[in-house]
């Protein structure tokens, strides 16, 4: 009986978010319909601005990947530098 009531409560709790979500509709904000003037741009600025104008999905994927790559690169380089100056980290004791 106890097991059965636990299963029933679990199912009821699972349904709570779905019920709340179903109550209201969500408005989607408008996109920025802007085109960048490429005339005075060169190099990377031109490259990214061109993709921004042509295909925002490609631009978005490039931005996300670039952020990840730059973040990872800095993490690795900083780790090496900190190790050199004796500030490397290892597992710590969790003292409150």
């Amino acid at each position, binding site marked *: 009986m106890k097991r059965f009531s636990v299963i029933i409560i*679990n199912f009821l709790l699972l349904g709570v978010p779905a019920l709340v979500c179903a109550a209201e509709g969500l408005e989607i904000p408008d996109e920025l319909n802007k085109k960048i003037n490429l005339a005075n741009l060169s190099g990377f600025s031109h490259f990214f601005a061109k993709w921004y104008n042509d295909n925002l999905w490609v631009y978005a994927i490039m931005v996300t990947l*670039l952020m*990840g790559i*730059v973040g990872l690169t*800095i993490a690795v380089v900083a780790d090496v530098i*900190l190790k050199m100056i004796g500030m490397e*980290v290892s*597992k*710590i004791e*969790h003292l409150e």
Partner: protein
Amino acid sequence: MEIFQIYLPIAGMQFNALILVAIGFSVGVMGGFFGVGGAWVVTPALNAFGFPMAYAIGTDLAHMFGKSIVATAKHRKMGNVDAKLGILSIMGSVIGVEIGARNVMWLTKLGIAGPVVRYVYMVLLFGLGIYMLYDYATKDKRAAAQAAKVAVAARAGVTPPAKKSWNLPPMVHFPTSGITISFWSVTGVFLFTGWLSGFLGVGGGFIRMPALIYIIGCPTAIAVGTDLFSVLFTGAYGCLTYAVKGRVEIFAAILMLCGASIGAQIGVTAVKYIRGYGIRLLFAIMVLLAGISVCLKQFNYISGSQWMVMCAALGMCLVIIIKLYQGFKKEQAEKARYAAKEVKP
């Protein structure tokens, strides 16, 4: 300062690169130390220096993604990331954010969204800050009371009564945090923190981090690392979705990321030298200052509110850097003393 002026093609304006790196740096230090994304600092800071608001949130989320990779990687090395708890937090938060966003839409239709959200924000920030300060101030008293209870139980030859908690199955064990808790308690907490972040329009790190400590029962350092793990995913999604809408200024994001990555290294390393309660105290002060900033905004002191949050962030960075330096010096001195003892037989 002229030499640092660069042209940002997406936003179509000149901006000082040094300011972007400096904002990134200060948010990086705080993010690595407190485990928060820092949107509540970045957006007003960028706005105060004239960065277009249309790009501020997207650019902030983009740099947040890169920064949280740096900080999470380092926290993982220190054993501060509970991936299982982090994944559960993401699932709960996503649903909560959706519900929160729908509630805001409903309030917008009623025409009361602005003041309601701001008042909830103020109550939350002040309530959280004051509670954390109270918790810090009474920690010794509570520890003494607990020790006395254990001593009495030991004399009587019985085990002290366990803390009461809601144990509705299924129970989930989190080995990294060392806790076993009902799946529903964890999901409920993350649903609520997600709802708050959706309702207030913030990343939610500053709500999740104390929730992990006070409600779930995580050690402070693990709460910080696990929260950053969640920020990594929300940052990645935020970066992609805002970039698709054309709202990410890529060059500004990279400059901020460079500053933030260095800052995050400092912030995370400082966690090694400051005990859990020290982190909670500094976090409480920062949350209270953010609350004052929201109050100023509510009473239309917009630039005062922006400068307040920026100065608070810079001041907090300075405190964290000083604490890191002191801890590092102390560790070096201890190492030297230990080495001298080893040499002297």
